[in-house]
């Protein structure tokens, strides 16, 4: 079996930067993150645990929260793999081939980002709603898409659409394709070359793509809110559930659910660390 070669990550003192520069940069970066990221996050967690860990667990353990967790995980588990496969195909296409319409294609891939979540939801309403193109037929035949799980999955797929492609693309571009060409010249099949040469090379891009995709899939609020119908315990995802709790003046519950989401997003980072550890292991 071919053993993929990973370059170990360098923790070197590159740039030979003077210590002052190094710590100056670190301080600036941390300062920025601190103000813009950590303090808001601490605020979320401190609200969540305002009334202690018991209240936190109580908020998470309600049947509605559990149903919301299940639905959120389902949506993420379906949309992340699909977007991973197609994102890889797209980035391979765009990084490796020159063809007419390439920039157009890339722009179309970016487009779901710039579409307001409100509109993203509306798109599916226009398509699958009672007055939409496909909606009447689907509703007639007992396969409603809107206000049911398929609609939520579709909306999630849509808003997380570009992540993998967008993350893998710069890595592929930065690396060039000499190794692939070498493998092909040596007689490896195209498929094998892709899986054993390309995929290991872009693994960081893929990982970050999956992490972002997953975080966003679980956290998406706007688009899902339009297509969900908000039926308690049936079509509410965690972000929607957080909003509902907040609107019921259950601040602790709302922030508990929100903090749970951030913890779920951290799960992908544990996987990333595991991959890094495996990669660094001899």
């Amino acid at each position, binding site marked *: 079996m071919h053993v993929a070669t990973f370059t170990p990550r360098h923790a070197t003192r590159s740039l030979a930067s003077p210590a002052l520069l190094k710590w100056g940069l670190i301080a600036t970066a941390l300062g920025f*993150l601190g103000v813009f990221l950590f303090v808001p996050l601490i605020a979320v967690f401190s609200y969540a645990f305002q009334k202690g860990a018991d209240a936190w667990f109580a908020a998470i353990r309600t049947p509605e929260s559990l149903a919301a967790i299940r639905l959120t995980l389902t949506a993420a588990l379906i949309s992340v793999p699909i977007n991973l496969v197609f994102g890889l*195909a797209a980035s391979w*296409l765009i990084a490796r081939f020159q063809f007419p319409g390439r920039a157009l294609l890339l722009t179309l*891939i970016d487009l779901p980002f710039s579409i307001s979540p409100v509109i993203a939801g509306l*798109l599916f309403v226009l398509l699958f709603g009672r007055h939409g193109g496909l909606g009447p037929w689907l509703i007639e035949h007992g396969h409603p898409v809107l206000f049911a799980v398929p609609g939520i999955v579709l909306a999630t797929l849509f808003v997380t659409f570009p992540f993998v492609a967008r993350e893998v693309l710069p890595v592929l571009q930065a690396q060039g394709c000499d190794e692939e060409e070498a493998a*092909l010249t040596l007689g490896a099949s195209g498929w094998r070359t892709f899986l054993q040469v390309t995929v290991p090379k872009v693994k960081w891009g893929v990982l970050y793509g999956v992490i972002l995709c997953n975080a966003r899939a679980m956290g998406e609020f706007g688009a899902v809110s339009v297509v969900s119908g908000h039926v308690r315990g049936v079509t509410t995802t965690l972000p929607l559930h957080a*909003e509902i709790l907040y609107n019921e003046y259950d601040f602790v519950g709302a922030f508990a659910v929100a903090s749970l989401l951030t913890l779920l997003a951290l799960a992908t980072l544990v996987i990333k660390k595991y991959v890094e550890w495996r990669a660094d292991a001899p």
Partner: protein
Amino acid sequence: MSTSARRRILPGFGLSLGMTWAWLGLLVIVPLSGLVFQSLNLSWERFWETVASPRAFAAYRLSFGASLAAALINAVFGLLVAWVLVRYRFPGRAWVDALVDLPFALPTAVAGLTLTTLYASHGVYGRYLEALGLKVAFTPLGVAIALTFIGLPFVVRTVQPVLEDLDPEVEEAATTLGATPWQTFSRVVFPHVLPALLSGFTLAFARALGEYGSIVFISGNMPMRTEIVPLLIVTRLEQYDYAGATALALVMLVTSFTLLLTVNLLQRWSQRRLESRPG
């Protein structure tokens, strides 16, 4: 580097082209065409009245201006954060790295509420900023700050993988040859990460344009002053005016499509320039 003729040696063009278009078609193009059809229900006069009112223009100005500001802040600091995370080892690095994605995981409504709490006049930040005469919550500045929070992971996460793959030996070589840190950065590192940086900037900008959930809390939604375009769209929907909503959406869509296309063409151009350089 390879020319496009040599690239065709690589397999998978047909398969990946087919897959990409199928994926795009099903998930993006078909739904978007529904949007275009819906807005065709409007007469030209009504369309124009909807998208060119002074109120809409005020909203475009705020949405595009605040998004641009947020994306620029994120480009500068995102690059810095990515660099620090990849190249330096310091206590707590793994934690910091882990937390960068969290703006995505936090439901936007929760993010909006939290930021408003922090920046409102009694808040942790608001208290001091207001003493300095700076009002953040319920002003355009607050919108820009919320958008910075929302878009923060993009630049970091697009630049990071490229930096991870950039061999530090190249920088070391440059330094050995007598380059200053700034020269090494601007001549070696920066050109290499530029495509990724642009990519991240584009994503952060695009995402900021459409953001709704967090902004309605911190903006205050005052007509002509702090109304963002997505709010106007929701307002239309609230009147059951789907056609008007899609008209505004279409304007946003065409504008951001043009912007994104420009950046993507620009990026291809910069990449060609990079590839054509000797060495």
